[in-house]
């Protein structure tokens, strides 16, 4: 059976540094895959490469059977892969609604003509963009809607900025969602809530999800499968229990156990 996203023997080098080395990875439709690994393991490079921001030096990326090598980030998003950023990068001076409206750019098509003459098609499309935006924001309860819609994103609290970033990625109507540390900086209660929402992203919205996360509770609770990266290489793959008990993984996180002194 063919995978939704398939990565074969993929390497990325920056100068002499192997950020990723002969990586093999796959995601099936409807899966939630957790990517873990110590700092500098190449997790974010892995995301940058899937989303087209970094060009791999060798190997292949297949999304639904088509090669993604050489596509611009906007074309990758167009094909149905959307992402969030580890250090939240919202359009801070645009309103919350505008943030999710602008993310629907590649799913809409009205150009100069429609905007200038305010055609029926233009009005209909604007209406749809707005409705979809509000629907996506509504996923997070009342936090991002109501009077907040017209406030700039910069007034939001840290946790809400993270939520808005997920909403913005959802607004691009992806099939595969890449979440880069979605609960970083959140308190336990907030991260528990978001964990539940990530599960609902799959069950209600039908997204397939790849998630980088350091919080092992979150990884354990939502992941069907866990991949551990270290030094740009796959260290272990499998269920959370398998990976978390893998000696190589423990070593990568905690270091080598001391040899018996003699």
């Amino acid at each position: 059976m063919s995978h939704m996203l398939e990565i074969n023997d993929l390497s990325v080098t920056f100068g002499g540094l192997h950020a990723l080395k002969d990586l093999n990875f796959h995601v099936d439709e409807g899966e939630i895959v957790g990517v873990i690994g110590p700092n500098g393991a190449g997790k974010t490079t892995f995301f940058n490469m899937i989303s087209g921001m970094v060009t791999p030096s060798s190997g292949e990326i297949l999304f639904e059977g088509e090669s993604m090598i050489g596509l611009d980030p906007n074309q990758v998003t167009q094909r149905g892969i959307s992402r969030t950023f580890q250090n939240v990068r919202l359009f801070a001076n645009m309103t919350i609604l505008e943030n999710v409206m602008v993310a629907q750019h590649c799913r809409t098509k009205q150009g100069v003509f429609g905007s200038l003459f305010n055609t029926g098609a233009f009005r209909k499309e604007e209406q749809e963009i707005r409705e979809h935006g509000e629907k996506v924001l509504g996923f997070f309860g009342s936090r991002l809607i109501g009077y907040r819609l017209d406030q700039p994103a910069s007034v939001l609290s840290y946790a809400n900025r993270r939520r808005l970033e997920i909403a913005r990625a959802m607004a691009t109507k992806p099939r595969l969602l890449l979440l880069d540390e979605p609960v970083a900086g959140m308190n336990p209660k907030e991260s528990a809530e978001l964990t539940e929402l990530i599960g609902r992203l799959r069950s209600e919205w039908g997204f397939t999800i790849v998630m980088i996360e350091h919080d092992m509770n979150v990884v354990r609770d939502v992941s069907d499968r866990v991949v551990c990266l270290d030094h740009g290489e796959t260290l272990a793959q499998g269920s959370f229990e398998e990976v978390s008990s893998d000696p190589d993984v423990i070593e990568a996180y905690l270091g080598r156990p001391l040899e018996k002194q003699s």
Partner: protein
Amino acid sequence: MTAIASNPDVTPELEHVKKGAFDFDIKAATKSGHILGLALIFVCLAGMPVGLNDRMLITPVLSLGYLSLLWLPLLLGWLSGNEKVLEGMATTKRGGRDIVRGALIGLIGGLGLSLLIMLLDWFDLRDPLVNWSPQLAELLHFDRSYAFGWFAWPILCATLGALGAGLHVVGPKLRKALVSTLLTVLTFAVFETFIVDIFDFLDDLIYDKQGGLTVISAIIIAAVSFALSLFGGGRAISGARASYRAATGSAKTTQTATLIFVSALALIIIPMVTGKITQELLANIGIFLLLALGLNIVVGLAGILDLGYVAFFAVGGYTTAVLTSPNRGPAWPEWFPTLPWWGALIVTVIVCALVGLFIGAPVIRMRGDYLAIVTLGFGEIIRILFLSDWLGGYFNAAQGITNVPAADFGFAQVKGTDPRSVFYLVLVFAAISIYVSWRLERSRLGRSWMAIREDESVAEAMGINTVNMKLMAFVVGAVLASFSGAIFAAKVGSIFPTSFLILVSVIILVVVIVGGMGNILGVIVGAAVLIGVLGGPKQPGLLAEFSEYKLLIYGALLVVMMLQRPEGLVPNVRRSRELHQDEFLQDAWLKGEVDTDDDDPGVVGDGPEGALA
């Protein structure tokens, strides 16, 4: 803080800090005095007093030359008394202290001029400093003895400094009246040419035969404006403004529509009643407004710093000239058509859009500084191509293309000798450009430009084809500039490479920045203020006397704006948020709009009630 703690009954807003007459920051005042002295000497050596001395404002008391010096101590005296009042902070009580400070600043500044008088007497530095002249010395000691000058300037400047500072001491109502009186008299005096141009009959009534207000008429104008501003004048305006601000929803839409309708009507009627000078001025403002609106899309919305925008103006002007003039270069083939102006306009728009694509395609992939430098280069390349001998057969090199015919619309002819017709043509195109900017800003394209301006790589990751979108902004900007170029060709009747210096790009950019980047109204205000008052690169403005110092004033204005109000006169709401992020967040916090990390998602509106309204 201790006062508040020890005396809880006194609210901090009501408490004034009392101080003695000399209890102020002498160091700061001395510094302002030195700045004043340097500014006065600079103005002298820039040649303003001598150059403008023949232009009388109030005959025979005050000339523009003296005014160029006298306003400085007044302004610095006023500024020295300014203090930033924050909510909950104690204010200082105004009084003799302010006046003493103002006088001290003026005194130090005036001593600077005394020093200059002495130096003028002792040394001859005319070689490096062209304005180091006996005329300057004569002017500075008021045609009397040197000693008179030495003492007169410190006393005069100290008095003016004290008066400027004294404005803080008098009540707000009286202050407003005094300031508006001063400004009214100066307006009547400085803008004499235009006031006469609009109201013929005033010429003999209030102005002297040699120019300038007569003393009596100056006093009458001052008295009338003082009385008007003290007793209720201007209240109607501020009341209307308040009600406009307070209006919401459909009421606001109606009011805005009325406002636009009234201003459009005024713009149509005004040129009918004014003389040629005003019409010419309005036409020039319009031509530069068209350019500024186009650049506003490129810089203000999409964030592409284009320093070579004049290229599109040049291409627009030359294309129209080549297509309409019989004097175009000899190298054009026989079959090349000569079109009427409107036909040429269509071709011009297409050509400019193509040139925009052609220049934009390589440039647009760059970012930030690199892009700015490359556009600067392209701006010059285009001008030099028109100037070159290589294309001389087509564009006549430095001789330019002359005899560009008037734009003939059957019912009207638009030509330079009839500035009113030019103005109406410009008005039509300005309306089109404003409409285009307004619609695009509120569309899918406008949103994507904003996103690109905010963070280009994230915009790209969110599915926006940034290269195409930026290119589109570039081309829309080029098309708007082509309108301006086409009208310019018909207005001036001849096109030379020197009309398209890099200075034009700079001035349009300054118009956009000073007016308010990304705000259509701001750009209109910027064009009216800068091009209208100071004048364009070659076109005189209201202050035609200052044309020699135009660039100096442009530079000074830009520096002041960048320091005091970087978001422009009429700011775009996003830009001011960006530039004043801290203050904005503080305000939001005070209003309770800042969000807290609530744990309960079910609570609607974690802000206070006010935020919902």
